[in-house]
């Protein structure tokens, strides 16, 4: 069950100014940080095998504080959701349907998210597993096709703007990987708890390798300057690739796949978020919350007024969110250690792996 963040679309836009030509290394560093977060989440999962995030927090910090932490998690998810959906809608709007009002795209997008959330995490996970392979295949294909167009010399100098910006960029990239914390919220639905952290790690690793390749190729094809000028560098990259004489401008097909990945990711975040709200409120069924929360999400996604503002917000979010994503599992783990509640830990039986 891999729900991995496919936030590489605009990633280059944020990374390249920070790390220059070495943006692709930044992405890899981010991947490493993300792997760490996945490991933390896996440890938590082993400790609380059948708790949601709110449940964990309540067990560790007591009910009131736990609920508060749950709410911060919901807030985090909401921001991810709002920004993510805005970003996706924008990409679709710009690349696909410039004459269609974005509201329409946005509502179709949300309808799908609502449907996915209604069906539950299993459906989302299964579909993402299938789409995961499709996305990977299409990216490999794209990369192979991009090789003739790429100019590796543009990657020089390797360290780019220096070591500090490199690491800084790494943290920026990590915020995408960090979104895997949301997995914490539905770890209790996993059949194979021990496989969870491995699956997460795989997801993060693949996501980050993809991000790194995409960024690297973006730089190779457009150059640092070029990237700073366009909105969605990966799209531009794809645009330069053609399938022989058959399909020109493969970016649309590519974007279609990417859209599905983003949709699945946001649906998972949405699901994590509403189940957490349901936990905080003590509801047994999360489904009544779907519609109100979807409205909230739409409202959030409309806060940035322009495309540029969206990216400003995105940049800001990316700067800080990684700390939250690290702090949350660390705090939970430390709290659990202090409390010494070692229930479950090793006795997790690995039933049918999924």
């Amino acid at each position, binding site marked *: 069950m891999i729900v991995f963040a496919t936030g590489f679309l605009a990633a280059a836009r944020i990374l390249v100014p920070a790390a220059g030509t070495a943006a692709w290394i930044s992405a890899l560093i981010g991947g490493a940080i993300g792997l760490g977060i996945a490991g933390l989440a896996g440890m938590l999962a082993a400790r609380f095998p059948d708790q949601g995030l709110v449940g964990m927090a309540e067990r560790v910090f007591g009910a009131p504080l736990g609920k508060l932490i749950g709410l911060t998690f919901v807030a985090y998810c909401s921001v991810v959701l709002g920004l993510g959906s805005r970003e996706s809608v924008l990409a*679709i709007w710009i690349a*696909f*349907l410039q004459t*269609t009002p974005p509201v*329409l*795209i946005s509502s*179709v*997008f949300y309808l*799908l998210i609502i*449907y*996915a959330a209604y*069906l*539950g995490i*299993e*459906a*989302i*996970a*299964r*579909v993402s*597993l*299938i*789409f995961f*392979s499709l996305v990977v295949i299409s990216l490999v294909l794209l990369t192979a096709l991009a090789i003739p167009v790429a100019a590796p010399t543009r990657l020089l100098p390797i360290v780019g703007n220096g070591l500090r910006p490199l690491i800084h960029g790494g943290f920026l990239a990590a915020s995408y990987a960090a979104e895997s914390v949301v997995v914490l919220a539905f770890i209790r639905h996993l059949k194979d708890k021990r496989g969870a952290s491995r699956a997460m790690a795989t997801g993060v690793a693949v996501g980050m390798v993809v991000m790194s390749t995409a960024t690297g190729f973006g730089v190779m094809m457009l150059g640092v300057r070029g990237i700073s000028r366009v909105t969605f560098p990966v799209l531009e990259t794809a645009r330069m690739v053609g399938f022989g*004489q*058959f*399909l*020109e*401008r*493969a970016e*649309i*097909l590519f974007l*279609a796949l990417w*859209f*599905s990945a983003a*949709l699945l990711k946001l649906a998972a975040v949405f699901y994590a978020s509403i189940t957490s709200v349901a936990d905080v409120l003590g509801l047994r069924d999360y489904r009544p919350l779907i519609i109100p929360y979807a409205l909230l999400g739409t409202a959030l996604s409309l806060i940035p007024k322009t495309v540029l503002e969206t990216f400003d917000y995105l940049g800001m979010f990316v700067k800080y969110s990684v700390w939250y994503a690290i702090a949350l599992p660390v705090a939970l783990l430390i709290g659990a250690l202090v409390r010494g509640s070692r229930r479950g830990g090793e006795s997790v039986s690995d039933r049918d*792996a*999924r």
Partner: protein
Amino acid sequence: MGVGETIVSPTLFSPRMGRLIWKDRRGDGGVFTVRFLRRLVRGDVRRPRMILVRPLLPLEEAADGMGTAGPGHESSEASGSPIPGTLDGVERRLRDLLGEGSPDVIMRRLVIWTNPEIDAMLLYIEGLASRDIINLIALRSVMLAERVPTLDASALGRDNIASVFMTHVVPSGQIAVLSSIDKVVEHVLTGEAALFIDGARQCVVFEAKGWEHRGIEEPHTEKVVRGPREGFSELLRANTALVRRRLRTPDLRMDSMKVGRRSKTDIAIAYVEGLTNPRLVATIKERIDHIDTDILPDSGVLEEFTEDYPYSPFPQMQYTERPDRFCAGLSEGLVGIIVDGSPMALMAPGNLASFFQSPEDYYERFPYGGPLRALRFISAAIALTFPALYVAISLFHQEMLPTKLALAIAGSHMPVPFPVLVEALLMEVALELIRESSVRLPDPVGQTMGFVGALLLGDAAVSAGLVSPIMVIVVAVTGLASFTIPHYPTGLAIRLLRFPLLLLSAWLGLFGLMAGLMAIALHLGALTSFGVPYLEPLMKPRPALRDVVWRSPVFTFNKRPEYAEPLDQVRQKKFIRTWKPEVAAKARKEPRKGGSDDGEGGEDRGDRGGHGR
């Protein structure tokens, strides 16, 4: 009369060499029959005290013995109304139950040549009961047999005379003594015959089925080039026999059930004991038990009653006309359901991948089987999305195409007065019309009709300027692609979903198409068939590559598919072709390397190994 009593009357013949008699603590007792076992299982019988073998007895003594056993024998059947004491009473009652004017209900009065003679009446339905059996078993054995005169009818009580007839007179394999007239009628309506004896409170019912039916023919819906040509027919017993013949394991179970208040349709639930997951069998039986309906004309109705998501466009049970496919399913741990009167047997659970499999994939060598399977998945994708893709690209994303192609499309669309969407819908509807009409028409006409319709209509529509030639190509390819899917309802589902996708892509371009596909994918992700996720076999890349989207060689199918959760995962030995030195060497290395778990050893042969534990 204890154990080991000698046979006094050697002329007497009974198919059974001896009898088992049981006695209850409450003094209940009777012949050891299947019915007794059933009662034992149900808990009606409290700890039977003794079960002893008794050799064949002379009639008189047998009658005495039965005397004590008789009444308890059918006590569970006594719920219906009893059989009237006189034959006239019986006849009146039967006329009440079966109506006056049915000429096919035969009540034949006869005299049994005992000493003294007894009046009797034979009841059967003409057409359901075989004339031969009636003549041979009933009439001959009762009226002509030479040993009947030795039977001292006066010594037999009213209560046990029927039992004696059952054990000693009527030579039939399936025979029972019933004491409720409603039950008797129920049996007679399934093709059995009943012998009422004057004065007896019980009646002998014996098997006499023999009706006209269609013979075994080649299956019409699942044609193969290579493979067996036998198909199921409407007759339940013939179908179960076809299955038995191919699956001779003693573990094959055919549990029988009845559905339909009026039709009382027989159903056989087939599975392999020790292989099929008992939970699955129980679920299916429970769901069938819940069906409360008037008649069950076909297995399709049963499918709709029992499936998880009746509102989903996707079928959730497999059906097949082919006994070979049915048996293959059973051997993978599926549960088969055969409905009397339907040549289509059901198999559950179904999943998306199973609907893309044709038995021919396995009968033909694997170098052809694999690509054929993959071709079907590709053609499903074409059937689902091709018109929508065309509409989306030609309306929204012309820049995706090479300039020449875009110009050609635009040029061909020039004379067409309709928007692309209308054009596409027009052609799609026309295609569906041709398809439907050629299904309804008689076979030879239907095919001609299809060709003529498609060719003429397409050509005329193009030359009239109503549709562009490219659209005709698109729709024709789509139509062809949709017919490659071996499971008809899946093809229907795909054809049905094509229309919303078409509308969506005309509305929002590729984004709309993707949104629609995502909705379908999510729906499939949530779908289950008897609790088994619909996409299950696609979830793991290795098994999926081995026998889902591709078919690997048969000697690599070491494990059964997991989705039906069979109790026994291992289908065959891992190394079979050990007459080949390399394989033999590998097989020798195997146990040393990784023990019994075959994850590791499979690695070196890319297609091996049921990985994933």
